[in-house]
């Protein structure tokens, strides 16, 4: 079936470096994508979103890139900080395929001081 998946289950980076977290999605009909951050024991926290009519969107220290040709989504975090340590999920919304988000499996980001 259609699914959203992540290439790397764990990413370890040095504080101050840039982080890139990747996500592959398989449903070409998906038109809205969200990155969530989940810290231990907490709910998913919205980071940034992007619609399918865009290929890049920037926030504060974060950038999301969307490549519809290869159905790939990435989250770039600039100058990674210890507080960025968490599990990051991408989620996709597919119109007319259920009124819900489909989540990927998650990538754990570990920031070394």
């Amino acid at each position, binding site marked *: 079936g259609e699914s959203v998946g992540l290439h790397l289950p764990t990413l370890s980076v040095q504080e101050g470096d840039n982080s890139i977290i990747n996500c592959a999605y398989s449903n070409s009909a998906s*038109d*809205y994508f*969200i990155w*969530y951050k989940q810290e231990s*024991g*907490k*709910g*998913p*926290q*919205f980071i940034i*979103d992007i*619609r399918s009519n865009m290929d890049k969107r920037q926030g504060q220290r974060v950038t999301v890139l969307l490549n519809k040709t290869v159905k790939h989504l990435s989250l770039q975090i600039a100058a990674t900080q210890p507080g960025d340590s968490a599990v990051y*999920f991408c*989620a996709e*919304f597919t*119109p007319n395929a*259920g*009124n*819900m*988000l*489909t*989540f*990927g*499996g*998650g990538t754990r980001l570990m920031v070394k001081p």
Partner: protein
Amino acid sequence: EPEVTQTPSHQVTQMGQEVILRCVPISNHLYFYWYRQILGQKVEFLVSFYNNEISEKSEIFDDQFSVERPDGSNFTLKIRSTKLEDSAMYFCASRARDNTDTQYFGPGTRLTVL
């Protein structure tokens, strides 16, 4: 900043008992959701609710589950007869308008079924 709240934060129950998980969505939101996350696994959709009725539900959401919006602020998930495999984090989410508005999640309720 408005946020989704959930109570209790942790619920422990015996197998076969009924539990009610409570959520207060963001006040001007119209669409409400329940998701669950079994430990170490990804977040899974359970049900969506709009205009006082279920708009979509997953295979997980069987006859043991029900949702209700008893008043203008609360949104509840009831599990009639809990099973061991219902142990998970349950997240409530809400969104405002059209399909591309972000869903905002609550902190979750950890349900432990013994």
